[in-house]
């Protein structure tokens, strides 16, 4: 079977238990050996999907709060979520016959808007926030140091209604309806145990997480993530992304941290800025995306080069210099952000920006120094403001039969 696999067809396929030829989109970290249908990213494996999985086009990210301190109820929800998530990532409904096959007198178990749509490479990535430990009264030793709250950065304009959360689910897919369907159904299952704190829709991935992908552009019109860590960077991922056994509590070994920042862009102001100024601020050309002084996008940036005016070709406060590993003692992160436009703001301006999502081994050793350098020096700060912020710990991937965060809850 090749081509697009619809949800309806998948049900038949799954029921027959037949293997499907033409498997694609198997992530580098997947431990699954079974062939998978096209457009299906395996849900289980050594790592959670949706981290080094080649970035899909669309995002629906949701941060939730626990409304109970009852561990059994949270466990039951996570089990239910896991079952539904695995089904949905395979292109199926939350439950067999969930949309129209149930009792017509009751509300359908599946909301139905993804019926007939392909799996669309849906990944669902799960994390726990700082409040998860306090609310459930978990052993403080289980709370990893990396989950300490982020410091306040210069010019932060954080809205509490767009920040924090006890849990998060990142849904990425090539079809926005598939991502929204997944989040909507998981949120619904959580009513009474969790409540939505905030959520964010994203489109147009703003970085590549695979060398197979072209570098996309952000809403400032610049290629973004040229030097991003990529799925193919095996050893570097271990160094910069995956939490190592010695780093903290065993349940998180092989997992990672997720930092989310909602970055509002003052689009209209940027659009009135000269091309030269824009390129100077970024440190790259707008067309090719080459570092200033270089010609190709992937040519190495020469931070030592001096221009005809006797000044560094890439300015001292250029964005790519401030954010570079060279300037940050080798710090790197895996970025996985998306553009967003939440309509207009009532003043006729786009309520738009970049929803920054990044994965890393230790937010306080990686994200904090990077963001501090940017917040204090980056000229781009005149064109953006950070309006939301959250940090989560994402457990490693799930083995067969495991549910999300099982090693933590049963530690």
């Amino acid at each position: 079977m090749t081509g697009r696999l619809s949800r309806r067809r998948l049900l038949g396929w799954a029921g027959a238990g037949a293997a499907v030829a033409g498997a694609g989109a198997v992530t580098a970290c997947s431990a699954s050996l079974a062939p998978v249908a096209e457009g299906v990213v395996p849900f289980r494996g050594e790592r959670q999907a949706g981290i080094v999985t080649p970035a899909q086009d669309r995002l629906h990210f949701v941060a939730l709060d626990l409304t109970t301190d009852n561990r059994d109820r949270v466990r039951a929800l996570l089990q239910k979520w896991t079952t539904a998530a695995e089904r949905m990532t395979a292109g199926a409904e939350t439950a067999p016959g969930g949309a129209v096959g149930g009792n017509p007198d009751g509300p359908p178990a599946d909301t139905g808007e993804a019926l007939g749509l392909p799996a669309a490479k849906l990944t669902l990535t799960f994390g726990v926030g700082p409040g998860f430990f306090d609310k459930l009264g978990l052993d403080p030793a289980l709370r990893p140091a990396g989950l300490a709250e982020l410091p306040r950065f210069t010019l932060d304009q954080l809205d509490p209604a767009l920040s924090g959360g006890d849990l998060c689910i990142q849904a990425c897919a090539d079809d926005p309806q598939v991502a929204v369907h997944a989040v909507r159904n998981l949120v619904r299952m959580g009513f009474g145990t969790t409540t939505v704190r905030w959520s964010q829709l994203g489109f147009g991935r703003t970085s590549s997480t695979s060398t197979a992908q072209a570098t996309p552009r952000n809403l400032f019109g610049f290629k973004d993530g040229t030097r991003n860590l990529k799925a193919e960077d095996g050893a570097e991922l271990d160094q910069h992304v995956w939490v190592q056994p010695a780093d903290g509590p065993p349940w998180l070994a092989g997992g990672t941290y997720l930092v989310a920042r909602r970055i509002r862009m003052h689009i209209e102001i940027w659009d009135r800025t000269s091309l030269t100024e824009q390129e100077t601020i970024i440190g790259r050309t707008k067309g090719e995306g080459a570092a200033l002084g270089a010609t190709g996008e992937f040519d190495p940036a020469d931070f030592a080069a001096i221009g005809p005016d006797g000044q560094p070709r890439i300015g001292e406060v250029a964005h790519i210099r401030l954010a570079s590993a060279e300037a940050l003692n080798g710090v790197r992160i895996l970025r996985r952000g998306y553009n967003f436009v939440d309509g207009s703001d009532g003043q006729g301006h786009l309520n738009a920006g970049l929803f920054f999502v990044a994965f890393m081994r230790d937010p306080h050793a990686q994200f904090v120094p990077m963001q501090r350098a940017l917040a204090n020096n980056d000229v781009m700060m005149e064109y953006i403001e950070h309006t939301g912020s959250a940090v989560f710990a994402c457990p490693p991937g799930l083995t067969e039969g495991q549910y999300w965060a099982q090693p933590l809850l049963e530690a």
Partner: protein
Amino acid sequence: MSRTSRAAVRVTTVIGAAAALAACTSTAPPSGGDAAGGGPIAVTAADASCDVAAAEAPAGKITFSVRNTGSKITEFYLYGTGDRIMGEVENIGPGLTRDLIVEVPDGGSYTTACKPGMVGDGIRAPFTVTGSATRSVDENTRLAEATTGYHRWVTSQIEALVPKTQEFVDAVKAGDVETAKALFPVARTYWERIEPVAESFGDIDPKIDGREDDERDAGVQFTGYHRLEKDLWVDGLQADSPAMADQLMADIRDLQSRTATVELTPVQLANGAKELLDEVATGKITGEEDRYSHTDLWDFKANVEGSQGAVASLRPVIDEKDPTLGPVLDERFAAVDALLEEYRVGDGYRLYTELTDEDKRRMAEAVDALGEPVSQVAGVVTS
């Protein structure tokens, strides 16, 4: 439950599917009309006490004679599991005595409650019904009992709605604005508990509970509670306010007569329970409904009570078909009640305009948490 006992509580016509189901009850043994041989059980309801003369009675017809010795209007309830209302008597004024005659076919643990001021969970005490539940109870019997039990409850609500609305109407016609304002949310409480029943008639709800900005056919006036609400709180009483008051009363009496013969199915009960919570989510949490008086939390509470009343009627069926659902419903209803108690002021509630965004968020969360399991009831009882 025998047909005669239902007639006694003025369910005069239950026809169609419900009647067919009810017929099954005739196969059950008579539920002991002679069981109340000990005579009525005296209940002395004061403002801070509720003395029930006996803590147990044999299964069958049980009569409580409730005397209100307190200074507040009171109510008396007999509850089964999950606060299923076995019977209740509403609107007992100070110094009055009213009887509650309730049919309890199954032995087991029950709860009595007086509600001085008609607020909260009331003053509760355990009550034991003795005797073995020997009758054969099949599913259809349970469903029929659910619909007749709910109908009985609706009827009791209307019996309180009529005089309370009359008091409100009288105050409006007397030009007594302050009294009318105080009675407005109280009268509406009985209305909001049973609104899905009224909505089932289609034409009654717009007349009684329509909003000013609803679309109406040419020549159709804005009438009902909200028209008078606007007069009382915003415009001042108008020349036609007395006529509007009379119209409201006539519409309420129309509702009363039509409800006496309404036909209800278990699915309607379940959907009514869900719709009442939808009302809360779309009209009360937003402050949209009582936009002049801002007494939305009174309605909120009444909607939840109405939802709980309908769900409780179905409880034996729910417990039989999905034993996990009932406890979730109990917990979520209790959570909403507890949250609303935080906003209580005297016999009423804080005004909507006094709520913070955080307050509204907490209410929305509690209603979402309750609405999801309540939405499952229809599917469970028909599974």
